[in-house]
């Protein structure tokens, strides 16, 4: 709050400071401009005075010429009047000649009322009470004040000369005055202040007493000093000083005019007329032309206020956003803290199990059963810990935007089989009713990031398994459709469960990292809250869609749709002999899709919806003397299951017809019973065309080929593997694990040693190389590249499998690019390692 107040005060001070500067600058600029204007106005006044002087001198000289002429010829008043009348060129001017003693005389123009009367009298005109001011001819300008012409009533001025005239009645020369009279209205026109220079300027001429000779409209009273006193305060001494200045100097002063407005009076003495002065008036406002400065100040003021307002609003918005961001960051922090707390808990839990069980195992090392149980549990805990760490690494990559795709050619069949294989232990554990259906999968090989695709499918399916109660149902559907993109197929992967479902509120945030549904039922389920976030990011990265329909207590259905590129390589065209195949499954949809698949392979399928129907169909066929060439039985059928059905078939119809048992479950549990019942082969779901093709052909051609038992590793026993590993413990672990499967191994402490060892080895000395990546002297990638360049083709083509903690897909891609044949991530899963070894071996064969 105090900060806000200080900020407001600071803003206000800045605004006030700027405005003060602008006002002061404007004020001084205005003052300067005003002074210049005043000087210019004074100069104009002087110029006007020169014009006035010339005019007065001109008018007076005319009067002088007349006077000289009259005096020189000793004219009578009448003759002089006649002479002047004859000399008149201006219509409005006139002349009066009057005796100085009587102030009576003649006018050149008649009285306006009595047009025959030329006599004029100045007795009632207070001009000639004192005539001392009238100079002799040619010596000065003698001009009267403005007065009323007694002959025509016009306000006029008179240029005057003293003359002498001859009075023939008295026979003597008398003193007289010659008045050349000019109407004020004429003078006003000539003495108008040029408005082009200064608008509203007015001109006045005053005599030494301040009486107006010429009076501008804004000059009030009949006397300038009276006018001044009427609207301004001035003492006697100051007034006298003003009077002295006006008739002796050129300058200006300000005063209030009759409207109370300040005006400037510029004055200058009229040199040719003793005591006269020219006064020019102009309102001060007319000289203050810099009104734009006030506009500037106004604009700046408004601008600053607007800026302030905008800044305030903007700052508030920023603050609001920052607050929101802070809240979000706090929320994210809290989420991360919660996550770390959860992680801590989740990591500590399996770690606790591992450490605790290891201690128990050490204590009970002699108790084989207990030891085995402990090791099994340690293995489970380790596996969970690995998943947890992988998820954390993935989400960190997702959040940093470094998640990228590394497409390879892969078999969707393998991926789905892998998915089923991985899921089966959990499905089995929770006794979930699991179904997987394949629909129109025609393109087996696709070009995509298999690892990420697997991850998507596994995440979704494992979620379904996790959140479905024991005994629940999960159905997986994989459908291939035509894609809008050329060279692509659209795979729709649907996982539907009847699990606990999700609330709408959670569904809004379920793709956000670290989010887990707040539900007492969920709390007991292990999870990182990252799976869906990772899945969504990966689907987005693959330009696919993920849709979810869920209802609490009813279940959840996730649908993932991806357009995947079809690989160039496809399996050869599979074609079965035209054999009769009986398929028995209580899943109508699956029954239908398998029948279609078999038909597409060239077989003649017949469908049985139960074990009993299958038996009946076989009986019916045998009654016609025919037989089925192959029988495919689902294991978990209602009524008679697969094993019982097989037993009856063998009992009723003998052992001639090959029987294949299929299931989405792990068949190893019933393998012995099935074999005893007469089953010849096993086929895990989903039933891809290649799965069916291979299984049927193998059964028919090579007799029944038993599934290799899980603990039979004779096929890989005796292999010799070169392992490049710099870490002693890792070496010991892998060496010991391989030894368990009858595989021998030899260590190379880095890439360089590995290259040298292989170089010096016999051609068939090693079947495979496990290559660590990060090693001293020479890393795994460089070592592989070097090996691939060996001249010895056998050595150069020796399979190399990366065995590294660099587990991201780009690491995998990098390994493959360097020439490796596979990738095993640390910590190693020995089952996966064995699978890789087998794959290599099969390829070698």
């Amino acid at each position, binding site marked *: 709050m105090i900060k806000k107040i200080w900020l407001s005060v600071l803003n206000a001070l800045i605004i006030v400071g700027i405005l003060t500067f602008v006002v002061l600058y404007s004020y001084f600029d205005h003052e300067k401009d005003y002074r210049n204007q005043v000087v210019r106005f004074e100069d104009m006044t002087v110029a006007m005075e020169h014009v006035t002087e010339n005019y007065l001198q001109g008018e007076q000289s005319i009067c002088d010429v007349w006077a000289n002429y009259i005096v020189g010829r000793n004219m009578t008043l009448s003759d002089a009047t006649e002479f002047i009348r004859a000399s008149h060129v201006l219509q409005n001017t006139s002349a009066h000649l009057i005796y100085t003693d009587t102030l009576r005389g003649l006018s050149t123009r008649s009285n306006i009322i009595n047009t025959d009367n030329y006599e004029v009298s100045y007795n009632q005109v207070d001009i000639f009470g004192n005539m001392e001011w009238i100079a002799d001819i040619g010596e000065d300008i003698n001009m009267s004040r403005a007065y009323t012409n007694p002959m025509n009533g*016009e306000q006029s001025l008179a240029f005057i000369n003293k003359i002498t005239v001859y009075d023939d009645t008295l026979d003597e020369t008398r003193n007289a005055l010659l008045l050349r009279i000019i*109407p004020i209205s004429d003078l006003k026109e000539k003495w108008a202040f040029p408005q082009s220079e200064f608008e509203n300027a007015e001109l006045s001429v005053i005599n030494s007493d301040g009486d107006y000779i010429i009076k501008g*409209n804004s000059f009030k009273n009949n*006397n300038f000093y*009276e006018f001044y006193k009427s609207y301004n305060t001035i003492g006697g001494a100051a007034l006298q000083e003003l009077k002295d200045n006006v008739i002796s100097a050129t300058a200006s002063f300000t005063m209030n005019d009759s409207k109370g407005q300040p005006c400037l009076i510029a004055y200058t003495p009229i040199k040719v007329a003793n005591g006269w002065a020219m006064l020019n008036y102009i309102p001060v406002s007319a000289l203050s032309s810099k009104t734009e400065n006030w506009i500037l100040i106004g604009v700046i003021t408004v601008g600053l206020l607007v800026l*302030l307002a905008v800044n305030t609003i903007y700052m508030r918005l920023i603050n609001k956003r920052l607050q929101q961001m802070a809240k979000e960051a706090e929320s994210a922090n809290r989420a991360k803290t919660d996550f770390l707390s959860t992680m801590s808990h989740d990591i500590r839990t399996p770690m606790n199990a591992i450490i605790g069980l290891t201690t128990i195992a050490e204590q009970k090392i002699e108790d084989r059963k207990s030891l085995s149980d402990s090791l099994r549990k340690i293995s489970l805990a380790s596996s969970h810990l690995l998943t947890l760490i992988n998820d954390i690494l993935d989400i960190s990559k997702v959040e940093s935007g470094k998640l990228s795709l590394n497409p390879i050619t892969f078999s969707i069949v393998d991926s789905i089989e892998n998915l089923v294989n991985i899921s089966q232990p959990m499905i089995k554990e929770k006794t979930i009713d699991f179904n997987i259906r394949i629909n129109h999968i025609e393109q087996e090989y696709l070009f995509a990031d298999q690892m990420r695709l697997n991850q998507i499918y596994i995440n979704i399916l494992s979620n379904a398994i996790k959140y479905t109660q024991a005994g629940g149902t999960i159905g997986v559907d994989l459908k291939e459709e035509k894609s809008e993109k050329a060279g692509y197929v659209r795979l729709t992967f649907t996982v539907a469960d009847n699990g606990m479902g999700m609330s709408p509120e959670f569904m809004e945030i379920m793709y956000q990292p670290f989010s887990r549904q707040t539900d007492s039922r969920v709390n007991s389920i292990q999870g990182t809250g990252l799976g869906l976030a990772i899945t969504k990011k990966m689907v987005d990265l693959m330009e696919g869609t993920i849709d979810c329909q869920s209802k609490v207590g009813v279940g959840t259905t996730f649908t993932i749709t991806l357009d995947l590129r079809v690989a160039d390589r496809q399996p050869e065209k599979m074609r079965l002999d035209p054999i009769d195949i009986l398929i028995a499954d209580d899943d109508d949809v699956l029954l239908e899709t398998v029948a279609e698949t078999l038909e597409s392979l060239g077989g003649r399928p017949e469908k049985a919806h139960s074990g009993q129907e299958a038996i009946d169909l076989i009986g019916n066929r045998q009654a016609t003397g025919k037989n089925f060439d192959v029988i495919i039985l689902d294991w978990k059928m209602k009524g008679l299951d697969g094993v019982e059905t097989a037993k009856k078939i063998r009992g009723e119809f003998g052992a001639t017809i090959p029987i294949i048992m299929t299931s989405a479950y792990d068949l190893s549990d019933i393998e012995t019973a099935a074999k005893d019942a007469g089953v010849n082969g096993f086929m895990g779901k989903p039933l891809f065309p290649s799965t069916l093709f291979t299984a049927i052909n193998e059964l028919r051609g090579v007799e029944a080929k038993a599934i290799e038992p899980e603990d039979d590793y004779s096929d890989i026993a005796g292999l010799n593997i070169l392992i490049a590993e710099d870490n002693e413990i890792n070496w010991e672990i892998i060496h010991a694990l391989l030894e368990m499967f009858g595989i021998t191994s030899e260590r190379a402490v880095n890439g360089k040693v590995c290259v040298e060892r292989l170089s010096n080895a016999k051609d068939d000395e090693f079947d495979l190389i496990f290559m660590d990546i990060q090693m001293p002297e020479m890393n795994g990638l460089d070592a592989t590249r070097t090996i691939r360049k060996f001249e010895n083709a056998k050595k150069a083509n020796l399979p190399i499998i990366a065995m590294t903690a660099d587990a991201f897909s780009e690491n995998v891609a990098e390994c493959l690019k360097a020439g490796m044949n596979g990738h095993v991530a640390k910590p190693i899963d020995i089952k996966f390692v064995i699978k890789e070894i087998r794959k290599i071996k099969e390829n070698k064969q």
Partner: protein
Amino acid sequence: MKKFLCLILAVLIVFPFAACKFTTGETDVEFKPTLDTTTSCEINVIGDYGNFEALEAEFDRFNKFYPNVRLSYAKTDNYQKTLRTVLEGNDKPNIFFSYTWMIGNPDYNQVLTHMEDLSDPALKLDLDCIRPSLVNHDAEGRVLMVPVFSRTYGMLVNENLFKKEGLSVPKTLTELMSVCEAFRNKGYSSPMMGYSRTSSSCFMYTVAYPLFLSALAENPDALALANDLDSEAGEYMRPALNAVKQLIDNDCVDLEECANIGNNYDGVILRFFEGDVPMMICAGDTVSGTKKRESQSEAFTKAPFDYTFAPIPMTEDGGYFIDSPSIEFSVNKDCDNLDMTNEFMRFLISKKELNKIASVKRLVTPTTDMPFDSVYAPFGRIPSERTISPEVLGIKDKLTVQIRIASYKVGKGEITIDGAIGKYGQFSE
């Protein structure tokens, strides 16, 4: 920040309202222009005032409505003699001063022909705002002139001197005599003063005129005789002339002191401002010059004092308020821009403007409101029965000449009261 913004907004909101209020107060909302306010023309007023600042202030106010109309006032030399020439010349005024004595005076018959009938309803002049006793209708019922000021007669009273000497301003003749004696005893050689060099505006006339009118008002037959300058009317001057003589004989007025007053305007005012004259007899026209001359008087500037203009209590019932027009305005019906001239007259002839111009000029307003200037406060207390309107009474100008000269001569001792009475009708300028 909020407060700062609120303050600025408040200023922005309040300021225009404040400005509106200020503007409303300045503008005369009663007057509404009827002509194009952009009209550009000139209006000239002529008269015998040396200057007329109060009228020039009216010009400025009128310019608020018609900014392009240039109005000016000019003094005409030898006004009364020149007026006709001016009216018939090339420089025709729009408005000119006029006086009631012009009506019926053959010398001004031609002048009257130039006057517009201001009672013409088309002009929409608010003549009702003027006291009816001041509005003069001619034989045809026309109103050729409208009063701008009212004139009365009385005395300037130095209130400070009365306070200083512990005296009260007199309200009856007895009190006046008593106060004069008291002042005299306190060293004031002339408790009352006035202009006395010529009969024009002399104090004797100022004292006598109200009393003479009062006498004539009580006797209509005598009024007729007086207007006809019948010598029999002279007797009605006796109370007035007695009063003049009484003031002089009782040393209320020192004639020698009065003779030092050079003129009946500046001289009277500046003498009064010397501060040692308790009562200065003069007409209201003189009072109009007091305000302006306060600053011109060094004595008054140094030692200013309060003063009022009061009726001269020349009877035991007090004084009189002679309510007569001072100057009047007539419109030259032959002038240029007659419409705008009438518009100006419509503007001027209103209570508001007439009161203003009278206040500035320090004369009595002719309006029915009679909002006297504080200087005129004593006249505001005069009962209506002691108000005399010469125009209502029917006083003719030649009658006033008789009482003016008679009182002047009696006051100066040039003639006896009886002699003056006997010469009634024979006095001339």
